[in-house]
């Protein structure tokens, strides 16, 4: 892993994305990830973002971005328009998660999903012993003031993918400063998955 201050989740995504590919970042925020992908991988980048001020910051970075709602922004694209559709820290905030993910899988050849793990041990401890809705570095919100609509664990997501016949092609689990390889559903704060609808052989 690089030690240049690049966010750990960005480093994973940077490793996975093929040079020169077409990338759509759903909920691209200030465009930091897209800017990195353009600079390091020469991708053709497009963002979708609902926050007007974030749009200004994306444009200042030279990115192309649509000011739009995630629940609406995808349907207008044709099948497999992008090599990758990225939902990094956005999935848990999408109103119609199932629909959005199916749409992302339709529009992208592959989809990269990153989200906080609700089953991290510190969340379990807070809920079990203290009886509070957990607050962790990856889930920093009070229950009454959170943008998150879905609270899922890494295990929930893998089960969901099985149920929907979605292939998990790669996965990475993140701790605060390093990768987690042992018991990720207990020890990882967040997970990133590369998924697709394709029926290609596993373990590629």
């Amino acid at each position, binding site marked *: 892993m690089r030690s240049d201050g690049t966010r750990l989740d960005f480093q994973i995504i940077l490793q996975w994305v093929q040079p020169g590919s077409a990338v759509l970042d759903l909920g691209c*925020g200030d465009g930091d990830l897209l800017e990195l992908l353009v600079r390091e991988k020469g991708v053709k980048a497009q963002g979708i973002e609902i926050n007007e*001020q974030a749009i200004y910051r994306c444009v200042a970075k030279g990115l192309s971005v*649509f000011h739009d709602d995630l629940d609406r922004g995808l349907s207008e694209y044709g099948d497999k328009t992008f090599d990758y559709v990225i939902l990094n820290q956005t999935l848990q905030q999408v109103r119609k998660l199932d629909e959005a993910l199916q749409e992302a899988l339709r529009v992208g050849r592959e989809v990269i999903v990153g989200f906080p793990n609700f089953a991290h041990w510190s969340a379990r401890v807070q809920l079990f012993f203290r009886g509070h809705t957990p607050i962790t570095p990856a889930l920093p919100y009070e229950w009454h003031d959170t943008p998150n609509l879905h609270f899922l664990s890494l295990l929930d997501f893998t089960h969901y993918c099985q149920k929907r016949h979605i292939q998990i092609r790669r996965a990475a689990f993140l701790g605060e400063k390093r990768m987690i390889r042992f018991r990720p559903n207990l020890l990882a704060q967040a997970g990133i998955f590369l998924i697709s609808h394709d029926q290609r052989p596993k373990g590629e």
Partner: protein
Amino acid sequence: MALLGLASKATEKNRSLLTKTHTSTLPPSPSYNPKRLGKVQTQFFTFAHPPEEMALESGERLGPIRVAYETYGTLNEERSNAILVLHALSGDAHAAGFHEGETKPGWWDDMIGPGKAFDTDRYFVICSNVLGGCKGTTGPSSINPKTGKPYGLDFPVIGIPDMVRVQKYLVDHLGIERLLCVAGGSMGGMQALEWLVSHSDRMESAIVISTAAKHSPQQIAFHEVGRQAIMADPHWNGGNYYGCALPSKGLAVARMVGHITYMSDVSMAQKFRRHPNGERLHKFSAGCEVEDYLHARGNHFVKRFDANSYLYITRAIDSYDLSRGRDLAEAFRGLQKKVLALAFKSDWLYPPSQTREIVKACKQAGVDTTYCEIESTYGHDAFLLEIEEQTHLIRHFLKRVSDERGSAGEREVRHYEI
């Protein structure tokens, strides 16, 4: 480190979900130090001399055609830093700077000049009056060479594509092979779209603001009220009023309707009150400042605009259909251009939904597009008033277009005499 990053991104999203404030937190632009252009002059170019008249969309031919235009900044050696700016319904070639002896600058002076959105230290900006207009370009008030009298209604019906073709002749005349950008709001946005589908080989990018690919029945309806007001004025006289009393009442009413559609409910409520001591303009007046405002705008307009031009130009706008009956995405298919599309939340004359239709087609056609819906309470007028946001977006967009083109921008420019 990593997860703190995640948290801050999520907080940003959280904020956007809950409230939308108008407090601008635009990133600082170190080089933003706008100055005004000094004195500018309108120039003229005449072409399509008979028998080589220009063929119009209608099949009729028109010539000679004189074009009034202004330029700001300097064309670089490669002739690659030219931007064509397109005006709205009542605009003209005087987009920026001051005419000799005048105190009011051009109509988009806030956006064009040294250090401004269309930075004349970097770019060569061109603006011309549209065909059918009354500010120096050939229109119904121009002299018909066949009769020696003003054209009046003998002036042929024109369309947005005809206006754009005239602009293309001007660009040819200026010796510019490829424009860096074609930009405009409202009717100017329609023209920028028309450039994009008809003359894409002559440009790198387009900026379309508060516009539509085609007028809706509601938009046509407001124009039709204006046209009927003009034609109902006895002085209109079938368009034959030059040298006599002008159809000022009718044109003023048309302009009043227009101004209503340019504002929003909120901007009107902020701007106008009832007169405190109940003064009224006439027996049936409500004594509200909005009435005085509309009268003032209407009366001011008749001094500077020709009623027949109003009829011809509104007809051109209302008849325009970018798609020509095709799927809009088909019209954009294969365009290797960059597009910046802007709309304003409170604009109900050209609502953001119409710009989103354009953006949707760009998306489907794979055109590299950026879209921003800017928070504003000014209604359609916002495109002339919300300077800070547009400046930020346009400056960065143009910088990217010129960087990727690999010329313009930073290179040294030399003065180019036309």
